[in-house]
């Protein structure tokens, strides 16, 4: 039986008093699980991922990462949790003043790793996501799909325990989205927990995974 990686206990969340986003959700996610998150636009997919990634505190209830309560962890220790999570943002968030290579290497750099130890890995990964021609370009000179692939490369470069991807195939063609999914799939086989928020039905049909559907301020789970 795999260990529990994430657990949500009676989580409520609202951004303003007038509208609840989540109303009492509880959920356990085990290590090595693969989940898709679906739901209409504005349902709360991004909010859900933010709650899991410790970048948003629930209004009430608690989120536990490997048994650590994210509400009570001291602010100056939270980076240790974040290092175990790779996040693909819906809006990419590449830094415009760093090259693609530097952007992808950033998670390693903030961990004070030496460049000579990771340079080869970064270049290899860039080749793998077909970005070798943009290695030294700045993100503003990349197409939407190229930026998205750079964002994905940045999320996986530090081989995190958990990958949270928000619409990771929203801007790429079918071939590249298949490739991205196979990357996630490979990582999943190696034990990484993957959670992908997506609208893309074809993506969901390609992968054996459980589905968390967000509707009416709650979640409905469809096991694989």
């Amino acid at each position, binding site marked *: 039986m795999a260990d529990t990686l994430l657990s949500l206990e009676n989580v409520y969340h609202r951004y303003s008093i007038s509208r609840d986003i989540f109303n009492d959700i509880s959920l356990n996610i085990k290590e090595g699980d693969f989940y898709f998150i679906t739901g209409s636009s504005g349902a709360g997919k991004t909010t859900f991922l933010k709650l899991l*990634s410790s*970048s948003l505190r629930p209004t009430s209830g608690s989120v536990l990462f490997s048994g650590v309560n994210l509400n009570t962890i001291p*602010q*100056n220790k939270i*980076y*240790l949790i*974040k*290092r175990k*999570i790779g*996040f693909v943002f819906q809006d990419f*968030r590449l*830094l415009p*003043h*760093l*090259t693609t290579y*530097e952007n992808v290497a*950033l*998670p390693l*750099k*903030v*961990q*004070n790793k030496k460049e000579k130890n990771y340079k080869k890995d970064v270049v290899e990964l860039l080749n793998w996501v077909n970005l070798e021609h943009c290695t*030294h*370009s*700045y993100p503003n*000179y990349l197409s939407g799909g190229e930026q998205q692939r750079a964002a994905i490369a*940045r999320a996986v470069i*530090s081989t995190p325990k958990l990958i949270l991807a928000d619409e990771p195939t929203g801007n790429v063609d079918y071939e590249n989205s298949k490739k991205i999914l196979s990357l996630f799939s490979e990582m999943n086989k190696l034990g990484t927990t993957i959670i992908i928020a997506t609208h893309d039905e074809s993506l969901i049909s390609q992968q054996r995974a459980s589905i968390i559907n967000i509707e009416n301020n709650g979640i409905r789970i469809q096991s694989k």
Partner: protein
Amino acid sequence: MNIINKVINKSEAKRVMKQLAPRPSSIISSTNFHSKYLFIVISLLSYLITILLTSFVILIGQPEFSALSIGMIQTSLISWVTLIFIIFIIISYIIIYGTHTSIIYNRNTINLLIQLGASNNFVISKIVYSFTKIGLTAGLTGSFAGLITIIFINPFLLQISGLFNNISDLVVVSSNSVYAQYYIFILIPLFIIAVCSISSYVTVKRLVKKYY
């Protein structure tokens, strides 16, 4: 037509150059609009300190100075020390202000770094580093400019004093005593670096704790 082509080619060349990063970029963008002005102002202040301090060191080396009454010596000492102290306070204030601006200007970068697993200390060190760099370059520039001024002004003053013999010897800067005070030109940049890095460290530590 030719001119238009030329312009286009030039801007194209620039674009290509920009696409290819020449060297590793710093994570906290140092091309901030304010870093240039910070550099200029701190250079000027460091120049001022250099001139003040050298003239002071030269003056107390003069035999006429020790001949002054205790009261006058005390007064001049106190005013000099106060003046230099105030300039350091001003530098510190400018850096504190600049650190606030830098944190606001780089908030997206800082947010992302924290999201990617940067510790507070990592973020703090990157910001403090950018201000230490400004302190280093501005401190060196200012004190070097001060050194040049003093070297060039010396013969000039000697000449004047030759023309008007009644000008007090105090005004005449003896070149020997200036060259003996080289350590001032090392000490001043060191002090400025220290003031810059300590001021920004204290500020950024407080702000990062508060907001992130």
